[in-house]
Structures are given as C-alpha cells and as structure tokens.
C-alpha cells in the first residue's frame, strides 16, 4: 500500500466515531473475523488507525479496496460535505428506457474519452440511487484520490446530486452525465444534507395535508386566557393553515440556508426620494437555521410573518431550490417581486 492509499484509509477512519467503525468494517468485508475481533474500539483513534492499516497491509489490500471502503462510508453517511443539485433537461426519446448497465457503460466511456487519467467507481444502492466516485487526474498526473467527486443519480428522474466538484471538471462531468439529455443545468439548491435534498426534490416528505385542527402547542396557550384564546383562535387557525400549505405538515427536509439576491427597486418607507429611483436597491438576504423550513413555518404560524406566504419563500418548497435572484418584472408591476430562474 503506498502513501496515498494509506492517507485515504486514515482519513476515512478518522472521520468516523469509534462506535461506528465496527459496522463499517463489517460491511466492507475485507478483514477476517479474527482481525475484526482483535480491534479494540475503546483505544484512542490513532491506535485504531494504525491497527487497521497494518491489517490491510497483511491482507495485501490495494487502492480498489480502500476506495470501496470510502464509498461505503459516504453511502452510509450521506449528510457530510456540501451537495449541489443539478437537473437534466431536454430528454431525448430513449432517455427513460436507459438501464443501469447502459448508463454505466456510456458514462465511463465518455469520461475516459475526455480525461486521460481518471478513476471511476459506480455502485447501485438499494433505493434506486446510483453512486459514482470520480478521482480526477489530468494529462500528466495520476488521479488524486484524496479529493474525489461524488455523484448521485436516480436513474428515472432528471436529478443529479454532486459533491466536491471543482470548476475545471464541471464541463467533463456535464457531458458524461447528460448522455440522453440535451443539457444539464444548475438546480440552485445546495445543502449539507443529501437526504434533505432528495426529500425535497423527489417529493418524499409529507406536503399539504392540512390536519384540519390546531396542533397541540398552539391550543395549550389559548387555554390560559380563554377569552383571548377564542378571539385569536380563528386567526391562529388561518395562519397555521397557510404555514402548512407553504411548508408542509410534519417533519420537513432539513435545509439549512436560503439565499436571495435582491435586485429590485427600493420599497421602504413612503416619503423618500429613493422610492422614485430607477436604480435597484441591491442586497443579499441569507436565511439560516438548523432546520430552515421548520423555522419559516413557525414564523408564519406565530404571526412573525404575514400571510399569505410570499411566493419568494414558498418557492423553496414549490420549486425545490434555495438560491434565488429576485428582480422586478418591469415598471408598473405590483409591489410583489417574483422569483425567477437566474
């Protein structure tokens, strides 16, 4: 095992908390039962790394095995790193019928055709997702396994999720992935959590079904002051309904941020000369939270935001993106700016 392979191995083991290492090594299935028993997970991390490295050397494992381990780690922990969503467009007629083998062949063929030194690994996961690991080299140097790009594609959808792709490699990847499509474009959605991204885009979370009655916590508050509660309950119901329409009811995908680039005319207080300006009042608004959609939903339900929910915010769930450029449609339009694709 050369230095690079050892580095890759060390990096994988160091990232995992000790209690999870055992499971990963078992799944990997490259160490013997005796070796697995011999590992003591209560030791300090550097000791475990040393032990695992020596076992791998004993078993004469090579780069292929180690990259396999890394891939298993990423598939088991999809919420590490930063993921970006892309969408394939202009599907050709036979795009839907592509099966896994065809996709693999075409993808590899394309990439090998454009980049001389490259290492590609493709795995299919149970949930219909294809995971691709790419270590990029160039005309003169071997593939760099310390900075691989990960790509996840659900075959019969038009979505592609990418992590750790350098700008210079973007074009190569685009051509190879969009084999049966006209083009690939930026989905304007990026998060740390691949799970959240898939839930949002593949509509895997519970959306509109409004339960028809207030959730427990809101009701409890109104019991303290029953008269006030009665007055407010109608408004609270309405706000809650609006919040559920925009952001769903129940657990939401865990997005962390949403960014809006504002290029609209100034709409502040009435009597300033600024309101008559032609130029835009430029700025960037960034919302962040440990669970953005939950925060926004609570914002609407509690009255901190006025309903109905503005299309700027509901576009996060409706259009599945979290980066927007907001411009005025033109003179004479209503004061609500609209979300446009950049």
């Amino acid at each position, binding site marked *: 095992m050369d230095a690079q392979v050892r580095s890759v191995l060390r990096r994988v083991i160091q990232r995992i908390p000790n209690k999870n290492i055992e499971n990963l090594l078992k799944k990997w299935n490259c160490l013997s039962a005796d070796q697995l028993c011999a590992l003591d997970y209560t030791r300090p991390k550097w000791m475990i790394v040393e032990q695992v490295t020596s076992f791998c050397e004993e078993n004469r494992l090579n780069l292929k095995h180690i990259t396999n381990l890394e891939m298993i780690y990423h598939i088991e922990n999809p919420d590490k790193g930063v993921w970006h969503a892309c969408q394939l467009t202009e599907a050709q007629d036979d795009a839907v019928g592509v099966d896994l083998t065809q996709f693999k062949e075409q993808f590899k063929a394309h990439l090998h055709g454009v980049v001389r030194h490259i290492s590609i690994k493709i795995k299919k996961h149970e949930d219909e997702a294809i995971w691709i690991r790419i270590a990029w080299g160039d005309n003169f140097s071997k593939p760099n396994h310390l900075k691989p790009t990960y790509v996840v594609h659900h075959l019969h959808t038009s979505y592609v999720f990418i992590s750790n792709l350098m700008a210079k490699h973007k074009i190569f990847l685009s051509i190879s992935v969009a084999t049966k499509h006209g083009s690939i474009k930026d989905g304007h959605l990026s998060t740390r959590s691949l799970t959240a991204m898939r839930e949002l885009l593949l509509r895997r979370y519970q959306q509109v079904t409004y339960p028809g009655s207030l959730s427990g916590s809101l009701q409890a508050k109104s019991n303290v002051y029953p008269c006030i509660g009665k007055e407010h309950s109608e408004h609270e119901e309405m706000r809650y309904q609006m919040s559920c329409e925009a952001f769903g009811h129940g657990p939401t995908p865990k997005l962390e941020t949403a960014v809006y680039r504002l290029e609209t005319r100034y709409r502040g207080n009435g009597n300033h*000369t600024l309101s008559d300006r032609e130029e835009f009042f430029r*700025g960037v*608004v*960034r*919302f962040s*939270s440990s669970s953005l959609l939950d925060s*926004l939903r609570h914002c609407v339900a509690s009255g*901190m935001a006025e309903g109905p929910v503005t299309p700027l915010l509901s576009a996060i769930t409706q259009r599945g993106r979290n980066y927007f450029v907001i411009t005025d449609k033109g003179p004479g339009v209503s004061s609500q700016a609209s979300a446009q694709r950049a």
Partner: protein
Amino acid sequence: MGKRDVQIFFLLFFWLGVFLFIMEGRGSAVNTPASRPLTRRSKSYGRSCVEAPSYFWQTPGHLTVLKVPTSRGAAKSQLITNKVDPEHIALLVKNEWKLSYVTPLHHFRHTQLKSYSRHLAAFIAAENQQGVAVEVGLEAGFKVTFTAVLGLAETDEDAETVFIQIQSKPAFAAAADAPKVVWRGWLTCVNGDPEYLRSLPSDFVSLPLFCTSGSESLTTLVKTWFERAFDCNFGSLALNSTTLNWLAALWTGCHPTCNIRHLKLAWSLPTQPPLDVSYTVNPQDAWELWNSIHPEESTDDKIDIKEVQSFINGLETHFFRHFKIYLSAGTLVKVSTALGSAHLDGKIKIGNSDYITTLLTLLTESALLKMPT
C-alpha cells in the same frame, strides 16, 4: 433637640434627597446599598463636611446624571496615525475584543506602569502555584507589559489609554523562541462625558471601557488583580440595539470617504428552531438611503436618533415588502462593515483605524451608562 442634632438631621435628609435624585436620573431600580459588600475605607470622598453614614455607599462622581444622547456628530475620519503610534494602532486593529466596563480606578498612575507590570506578573504566577486553573499548561512564567497608548484620548478629561499584553515563557523554549502573546487587553476612555469626568475626585482615574482578547481564565485573573489593586469593579458590557443602530448609520455615512464594502446586518428571530437573517446591502445603495434621510450637504452636523431609526426602518420595510417577515419581531444582533463589526454580546472588531474614534466614543458612552451606582 440641640442645634447639632438639627444639623445632622438636615444633612441626612439632604443626602437622602441627593441619593434619590441620582436614582431617578439613572432610571434604574433602587439598588439597595445594603446589598453591596461594604468596603470600609479610610479615604474620604472629598466631602469632609459630613461623616457619611455607613449605609449610604456612593461611587464618587455620581452627583452628575448621565444622559443617553439623542443626537451626535457624524463620524469624522482622522488619520489617527498622526496622533497615535502606528505600531500601537496595529495592536488594536487585529483582534476580536470582548467588552467590559470598569468603575473608576483609585490611585492609578500612568507613571507606574512598569511596577504594575511586575506586580501583575507576580500575581499570576502566585495564582498559578495555588492551583487556580490556567489552561496554559507547561508555561514556566508570564511576562506582562503595560504600555501607554498616547493619542487616543480626545478631550482634556479623557485619560490616556493603557494597553496590557501577557506573553508566555514556555518551559522548554530555546533561546531564540519568541515569547508567544497569550492575552491582550486595553483600558480606554474616548470622549467620555466631561461633566462626569470633572466630578471625579482627583485620585480617581476613569478608563471605563475594557477590551480583552485571550483565555477567560487569564481575563478573570487580570480583573481580580485590578479590583484588588485599584478598588474597582468590572462587569460585562453587552451592547444594545440602539448602539448597533447608531453604528450602522454612522458607518454608512462614511462611505463617500472610505469604502465600507458592504453594510451587513444580522437579526435573530425567536422561532423554533431560531432563524438567523442576514441582510447585506450594497454600500452605495445603503449610502443613498442614508443620504436621503440625512443629506450630506446639510448644514447641521448633528445626526438625530430619529434619522437613525428611520434608516433602519427603511431597511426593515424594504425587507418586509419582499418576505412579509417582521424583522422587528426579532433582535438586531450584529452590524458589520469594512470599518468594523459589533455584536450584541459585547464583541467588537476594529476594521479600519481611521474611524476608530467614533466607535470608541460610542463604546465609552455605553460603558459609562452601564456602570452601576
């Protein structure tokens, strides 16, 4: 009742009246003096005409009422390096500083800085030996330096700034190893309220703003030493949203002379989980908005608090028209531009030394207002 008794009663009522007047002026709840540990001192407060009864504890100088200003002058750029040694300025501009206020220091002399350095170093070493937790581990000792930073003081009443630096001497250092700076702090007073400063007795020095950078344990040790040596009290200085609003407006007003690069405001909304909103405004556009509220060419050099509030309201309203979210339901937590940043928790960063006086004036004011009676 004799004449003497009448005199005593009269004086008692006089001081009672003064005490209550101060309390009202400060707008704070009555701080029962009995709750403070009484420090029996033989020094008088300069009012030798009365033997003040022990339950009236007064900080010297609080006969004046400190008011919150509703207007102030615009931020003026100064080539501060004309007044202050550039090396000293470089020390201030580097770090993020945590703010505290400190009550006036008794018998503090700018001429004794070398002796203070030795005393503080000895104090830290002694505390170390006693086992007071200092995270630094294998350090053999500390070297403390007190420096006077001349030129930051603006008025005649301001005392000169004092900068303190603690360097560690690691146990196994080679001779060529430079000692590492582990803690920095400075005490300053810039444009402090002149009436208040003049009312202090002559043996008190007021340097109300204390900025620190370094480990909490060292900060606590330094504060303890100061409290024992100069009979003062420290407290944490959190900024309020009015100060942050002033900074946003004052810094924006500087844009023509010094590119502020952006005006970034950060709010925190109390949702579950909490939502952070940061609004970064293009500096030219922010300046145009400010200029429409307080025109640059206006003859009146004073900026009124209402103009500042109008500025912030304008930004909040523009935001509201897009997102329908009331930013006023949350708290403004941080303001930053290229000139510096200020956080509600009492943390600041100085970006550009040209406008350092404006920032320090605001902070000195906050420190003086926060001090307890």
